């Protein structure tokens, strides 16, 4: 990585890795990113320390550095540690997936929650878990379901992904099908299984293991660079297909690759945490406003997504109810309201 090229009035500073990758960034973006990381760290500390089982603040650093036993080891190693790791990575994954989708469809509403990806993945997971247990593992089922749903949307629109509004409507139809299928599986299965599955299908981070954390961090490590590589061309796509093609953006191929990466990201997130609603929808929007950047602020979206999910999970963990609700219910309620706000705003602008 070379030092950033000096910023003049015409050039934005750029981080280069050889010739393959150059990511333009803005000062504001860097500052916002740093702040986001700090806030995530703060949320993480609160998550580990708060409540009856929390590790006391003075003991936290030693506990992190050494290998503590007893209560602290249990809380850090089994109870909250993996859960926190999964929350941060899943949030980041969803944020990136949302950015890719929203850029490709050129519409804030074209995110995995609205267009049937989550429903498809959930249906796949449900089928793998309850209908044909043991035949395929649940994550594979989620990926399969997500891919089938996307294929259905792709075929359904008749022109691939180039017509955003049609894309969204077809997605709503596909998601209704996935949802119906999931409900059928739940109604068929026994009560205990059904309860577990229902909470998974809302998106939950309860009792995650380091194995889950490894899966999602690995997925993020592979797919985030892929998304960054696509980022530059995605910026061109935002200007419209013809302009993008004229500038060498190869809109069709870029779109297909982005969707593929986004589907993999979403499926990875679903397989460890279930379809957590609306993080993918809101994170890019918030990131965009924070960064005041046009275009795919992929890194910022990842950080925002991580912060959103970690915070939501903290709230769910510390909520004063007897039952620990899945985190997906909180994100669905809050995100749904935000989606409503987004809709009204879009309509006032007349973009839909």
């Amino acid at each position: 990585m070379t030092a950033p090229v000096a910023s003049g009035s015409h050039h934005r500073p750029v981080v280069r890795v050889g010739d393959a990758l150059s990511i333009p960034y803005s000062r504001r973006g860097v500052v916002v990113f740093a702040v986001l990381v700090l806030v995530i760290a703060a949320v993480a500390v609160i998550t580990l320390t708060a409540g009856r089982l929390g590790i006391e603040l003075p003991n936290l650093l030693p506990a992190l550095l050494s290998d503590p036993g007893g209560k602290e080891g249990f809380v850090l190693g089994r109870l909250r540690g993996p859960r926190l790791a999964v929350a941060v990575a899943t949030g980041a994954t969803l944020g990136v997936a949302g950015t890719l989708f929203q850029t490709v469809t050129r519409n804030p509403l074209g995110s995995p929650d609205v267009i049937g990806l989550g429903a498809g993945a959930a249906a796949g997971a449900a089928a793998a878990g309850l209908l044909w247990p043991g035949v395929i593992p649940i994550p594979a089922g989620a990926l399969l379901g997500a891919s089938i749903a996307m294929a259905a949307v792709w075929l359904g629109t008749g022109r691939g992904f180039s017509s955003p509004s049609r894309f969204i409507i077809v997605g709503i139809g596909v998601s209704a099908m996935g949802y119906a299928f999931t409900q059928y599986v739940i109604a068929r299965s026994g009560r205990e299984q059904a309860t577990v599955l229902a909470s998974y299908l809302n998106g939950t981070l309860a009792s995650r293991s380091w194995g889950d954390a490894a899966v999602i961090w690995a997925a993020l490590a592979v797919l985030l660079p892929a998304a960054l590589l696509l980022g530059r061309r995605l910026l061109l796509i935002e200007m419209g297909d013809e302009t993008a093609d004229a500038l060498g953006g190869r809109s069709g191929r870029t779109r297909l690759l982005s969707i593929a990466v986004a589907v993999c990201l979403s499926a990875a997130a679903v397989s460890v945490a279930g379809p957590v609603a609306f993080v993918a929808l809101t994170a890019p929007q918030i990131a965009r406003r924070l960064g005041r950047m046009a275009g795919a602020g992929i890194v910022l979206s990842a950080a925002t997504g991580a912060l959103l999910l970690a915070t939501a999970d903290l709230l769910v963990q510390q909520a004063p109810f007897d039952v620990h609700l899945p985190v997906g219910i909180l994100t669905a309620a809050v995100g749904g309201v935000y989606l409503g706000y987004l809709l009204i705003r879009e309509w006032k602008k007349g973009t839909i």
Partner: protein
Amino acid sequence: MLVAIGVLALVILLSLSVGNKALPPLQVWQSLIAPGDSYADAVVNSRVPRTVLGVLVGAALAVSGVVMQGLTRNPLGDPGLLGVNAGAAASIVTAVAFFGVPSAAPTVWVALPGAFLAVVIVHLLGSGPRGGKPLRLVLAGAVVTAVIAAYVQALSLSLPDVFDSYRYWVVGSLAGRDPAVIADILPFVLVGLALSLVLGPGLNALALGEDTATALGAHPTRTRLTGAVATTVLCAAATAAAGPIGFVGLAVPHIVRGFTGGDHRWLLAYSVILGPVLVLAADLIGRVLVRPQELMVGVVTAFVGGPMLLVAVRRMRAGR
């Protein structure tokens, strides 16, 4: 029209005869006109409530779909898509959870407030200053459905008993419902259908645009209000009885429009007949497809209706 009625009769007969124990249609007929207490009679008897329920629910959903599409001048109007079913579901779950209503028999009264609230919210969200565009309403419906679903899930997951009855109800099924439900929803469906059927001319006028309708002497506001009440009552009744069944209200009007054109009077009349046909046929498919188990009718309609949404969208684009 005669053909449609013939098809309905055929589907009803099939619905009575097909199942885990298949009976020849002739025997069904005998059991119906001269009930005895043979085994066949018992089988037919057990299928009668289900069939009647299918007819009522189908008619209610299809007609409410026509009215909704007419009112919003939007080919994508469907009680399921626009969140009305979800509203009814939320209010039923609330009643079961907090007010001790027995979960076995959710009544129409319980479903009404939620359904009505959802109708109002969707219309507020979806009809901006420049009138609601189709995509807008559908998205508004999706938002309302998502938020309501979160609420319902939160309730049902924290209260296992509610969850247990809820998960059977929420798929949308005609099987295993209490026959008393039919008597319960019958008056609502009849009132809703009557209200809707007289709306035909009003909807036709509205299709020309608000201003033209007023100039022609129609009362758009009155039509809208009656229509909203009628759709709410119909959806609430159907949802209370059979659970949320999607896409019937979308699919039937589109099929009917194919051979009647856009006249709402004919649309309404045909929907009353073809709605039941679709629901009963879906129920039949569900019974036959995975024998000896059954696929719930809501699952079948979703898989039949999802593609219909696509057809509707394509037709919409072609029309403009």
